[in-house]
C-alpha cells in the first residue's frame, strides 16, 4: 500500500519533470503546488478548526465550566465534549491536516531518493515504481539533479536553504497564530512553542536530507502564507515585536 502511494508520487513527479523540459527542481515546486491544491480543503478546515478552538478559549460559558470543574477532570472532559458537540467543533479538525503532511513528506523524500537514484538499489526500486505504459522513464534516466546551485539528491552545504526553511516555517507559524486573549490558554501556549520547535526541526531536516526536500518545504510554506493571506486570516501583527503590536 505504502509502495503504491510512493509510486504514484514518483510517476507524477517524473511526468512533470518530462513535461517541463527535465528540470527536477521546478518539477518539485510544481508538484508541491499540486499537493497544496489537493490538500487545500484540509488546510482550510485546519484554519477553521484552529479559529473555533481559539474562540472557545474566550467563551464565557467554557471559562465558567473550567472554573467549576477544575478539580473534577472526568466531569470537565464530559462538559468539554458537550460544548464541542453544541458548537460543532471537531477537536481533531485543526491537527489532522498537519498529520496528513507527514506521510506526504516521507513519500516525497522516498520519491526524490528513488528518482535521483544515487545507488543501484535506488535505481532498481525506481524501475519497480514506475508505470512504463504511462511514461518512458528509461530515456529520462539519469535525472538532472542540478537546480540553481544545488544537487537535489544531496544536502545543501551552505546552510542557505536551511535558513530559508526555518524562516518561512517560522513566519507561516506566526501568521496562523491567533492573538492570545486568555492568559491561561494552554493551546495558545502550545502554539507558541510549536512556532519555535517546528522551524528548528524543519531547518534541521533541510540541513540533513536531500535539498529537494528543502525545496518542497520552502514552496509549501510560501504557498501556505499566500493561502492565509488570500483568505484574510494572516495575523501579520504576530511578526512584530510584542511592544509594537496593537492590542
Amino acid at each position, binding site marked *: 500500500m505504502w509502495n503504491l502511494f510512493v509510486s504514484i508520487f514518483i510517476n507524477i513527479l517524473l511526468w512533470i519533470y518530462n513535461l517541463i523540459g527535465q528540470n527536477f527542481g521546478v518539477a518539485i515546486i510544481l508538484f508541491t503546488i499540486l499537493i497544496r491544491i489537493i490538500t487545500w480543503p484540509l488546510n482550510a478546515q485546519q484554519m477553521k478548526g484552529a479559529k473555533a478552538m481559539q474562540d472557545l478559549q474566550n467563551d464565557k460559558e467554557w471559562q465558567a465550566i473550567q472554573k467549576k470543574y477544575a478539580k473534577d477532570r472526568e466531569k470537565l472532559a464530559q462538559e468539554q465534549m458537550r460544548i464541542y458537540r453544541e458548537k460543532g467543533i471537531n477537536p481533531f479538525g485543526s*491537527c489532522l491536516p498537519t498529520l496528513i503532511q507527514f506521510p506526504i513528506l516521507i513519500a516525497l523524500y522516498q520519491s526524490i531518493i528513488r528518482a535521483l537514484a544515487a*545507488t543501484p538499489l*535506488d535505481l532498481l526500486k525506481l*524501475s519497480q515504481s514506475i508505470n512504463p505504459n504511462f511514461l518512458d522513464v*528509461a530515456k529520462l534516466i539519469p535525472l538532472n539533479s542540478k537546480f540553481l546551485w544545488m544537487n537535489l539528491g544531496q544536502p545543501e552545504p551552505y546552510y542557505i536553504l536551511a535558513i530559508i526553511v526555518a524562516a518561512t516555517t517560522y513566519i507561516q507559524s506566526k501568521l496562523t497564530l491567533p492573538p492570545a486573549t486568555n492568559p491561561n490558554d494552554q*493551546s495558545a501556549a502550545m502554539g507558541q512553542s*510549536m512556532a519555535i520547535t517546528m522551524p528548528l526541526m524543519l531547518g534541521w531536516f533541510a540541513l540533513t536530507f536531500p535539498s529537494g526536500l528543502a525545496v518542497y518545504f520552502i514552496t509549501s510554506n510560501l504557498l501556505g502564507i499566500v493561502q492565509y493571506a488570500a483568505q484574510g486570516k494572516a495575523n501579520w501583527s504576530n511578526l512584530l515585536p510584542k511592544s509594537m503590536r496593537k492590542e
Partner: protein
Amino acid sequence: MRKKLLLLTTVLLGALLLSACGGAVRGTTWPGLAADETTAYLADLSLVYGVNLKDGSEAWRFSDPNDNKAQFYAPPVITPDGLLIVGSAGGKHTLYALNPRDLITNGDFKNPAIEWTFTGAGAGWVASPLIVENKLFAPNADGTLYVFDLNDGQTQKQPIATVELGGRLWAQPATDGERIYVTSLDHSVYAVDIATYAIVWQADIAAAIPGSPALGPDGKLYVGSLASQLEQFDPQTGNHQSVLDAEYWLWSTPILDGDTLYFGDLKGNFYAYDAASGNLNWSIQPDGAITANAILQNDHLLLATESGNLYAIGKDGKTLWFETVGGKIYTTPVTAGDLILVAPLETDFYLAALDSNGRQVWTFPAKK
C-alpha cells in the same frame, strides 16, 4: 491539550522516521562480492570483510577511521600480487589498495594494512576497476576513467591518465586487449585505446546502461540497457544495432558460453541468445527481478533472483535445482573452489556459502 500532545508526538515520530531513512545503514544498496582461493571479500556499506572460505569465520575487516561516511559496495578486485582494490561511494570517495597479508590487530578485530589510496575522484566508486597487466582502469561516478600504474610504488596514488567520458560510470569495463569498453548511465558506450587512452568512439543508445559490456564469441560487443534491448556493437567502429527486445530493463551483464549469451531482465526473464544465428534459443521466468549476472558452473548456469532463490539452470533452460537462500539477492554470486557464495540483503547473515548442489555450508556471520 491531549491532541496537541498527539500532534507533537507525531511530529517527533515523523522526524524519527525520516532520520531512519538516511545514513549509510546496511541495506542502502547491495554489497559487492569477490573471492580468491582462500578468502571471500565482501564490500558491505561501512565495512569490507575478509571471510575465511574454510568455515565462514571473519579473517579481517576494514573501515576507514578517517572517513566515517565511507560506503563500500563496488565489488572488490584482487591484483596479481594479492592486493585488494576497493572504492568508497561515500565520504571522501577514496580508492584503497588493502593488503590482506599484512594484518594489524586492533582490539578484537584484525585490519588489513593500506598499501595506497587515491582521493582525487569527484564522486563515488560504484564500479569495479579492471586490471590489465600492470594497469588499473577505474571508472568513477564522476564520469572519468582513471588509469593507475599498479607498480609505481606510490602510497598516495596519482593516475597516469584520466579519460573524461561523461555521465555516471557504474559498471566494470571490458577489454579485448586493444581497447577498454566502458558503459555509462548517460546512455553512451565508449571505446578507449588501451595504450594511448584516446576515445576511439562513442555511441549513444538512448537509454542508461548500468551493467558491463560483454565481448561475444563473434568478436562483437554486447550491451544491455534500460531501453530493454540487447545492443550489438562493432568494436572497431562503434556501429550498433539492437538484436533482441527484452520484456523490461536489462541490468545484468550477458555471460558467454560457446555461441550463447545468457542474461536476465528486471521483470525476471532469463534469456539464452545465440550470437551466431542471431536467434533467441529460449527464455524462462524463474521468479523476481534479475540484476545479478548468471555464472557458469560445469555444465549448467547459476542464477540468483531478487526473490532470494539460487537456481541451477541447464543449458536447455530446464531448472536442475533451486535453493532458497533468503532475503533478496541482487549481487552476482561468486564461485570459489567447490563453494557458491551468495550475498543477500534483508537477511540476518551477510554471506552464505553453498555447495555445488545448493546445500548451505556456512553463513557469515554465523547463525546464532
